[in-house]
C-alpha cells in the first residue's frame, strides 16, 4: 500500500471563482474509495421571484473560524480522510458556485454523511449573508426564520 497521506480538513472563504475541478484533485488519496461533493449554485429563482445575481457578505474572521471548526469536527466524527470546503464572497452570477464541500473516505456511508453534515452546519452557523438582486431591480437580505 502507498504511504498513508495526511488527513486534511480545510475551510476557506474565496472572493474569486471556486475552482471545483482543482479542489476535487486535492481530495485524491489512495486509501479512499469514495468521494462525495456538494456544490451550492446560484439559482435563477427564489421564493417565486426571478433572481438576476447575488452578493455574499461575510464576517470574515469569524466565518473562517466557524467554518474550520465545522470541517475539523466532521473529520473527528466521521470515518473520512479529507474534507475541503470553500464559500464565495462578493458578487455572483446565476450558475456560479457559491459553496463547495468535498469529502474523501474509504467508504461511501461516511463520505455522504460527512458531506451532508458540513453543508448543513455551514448553512446553520457560518456568518455569511446573501443579498439577492431580483430581475425587477429590487434587492433583499435573506434572513431565514
Amino acid at each position, binding site marked *: 500500500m502507498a504511504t498513508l497521506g495526511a488527513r486534511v480538513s480545510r475551510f476557506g472563504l474565496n472572493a474569486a471563482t471556486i475552482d471545483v475541478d482543482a479542489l476535487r484533485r486535492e481530495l485524491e488519496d489512495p486509501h479512499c474509495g469514495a468521494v462525495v461533493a456538494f456544490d451550492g449554485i446560484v439559482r435563477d429563482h427564489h421564493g417565486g421571484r426571478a433572481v438576476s445575481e447575488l452578493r*455574499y457578505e461575510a*464576517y470574515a474572521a469569524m466565518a473562517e473560524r466557524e467554518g474550520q471548526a465545522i470541517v475539523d469536527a466532521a473529520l473527528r466524527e466521521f470515518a473520512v480522510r479529507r474534507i475541503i470546503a470553500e464559500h464565495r464572497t462578493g458578487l455572483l452570477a446565476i450558475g456560479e458556485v457559491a459553496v463547495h464541500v468535498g469529502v474523501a473516505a474509504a467508504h461511501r456511508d461516511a463520505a455522504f454523511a460527512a458531506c451532508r453534515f458540513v453543508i448543513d452546519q455551514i448553512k446553520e452557523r457560518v456568518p*455569511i*449573508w446573501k443579498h439577492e438582486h431580483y430581475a425587477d431591480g429590487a434587492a433583499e437580505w435573506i*434572513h431565514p426564520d
Partner: protein
Amino acid sequence: MRLQLRYFASLRDAAGSESENVEHAGDAASLYALLAARHGFALPQSRVRLAVNGAFVPWSQALHEGDEVVFLPPVSGG
C-alpha cells in the same frame, strides 16, 4: 465600558454604517434594545445571535472593556 460594534447585512443597512464604538454599562440585550430603537432594526432580539470577539456567546455573557460585539442576523450562506 467602551465596545466596538460591527454591523452586517440588514443591520448594516439599517445602521447606515459598518461599525461604531459605543459606551455602554449594561448587558448585550440592553445594548441591542438601545441600538434597535436608535437605528430602527427590524429584527427582534430573539432572531439575532450574539458574537463577542468572533465567537458565538450566550446573551447572558457579560461584556468587557474593548470587546468586539456583533449582533448576527440569521445567516444565509450556502
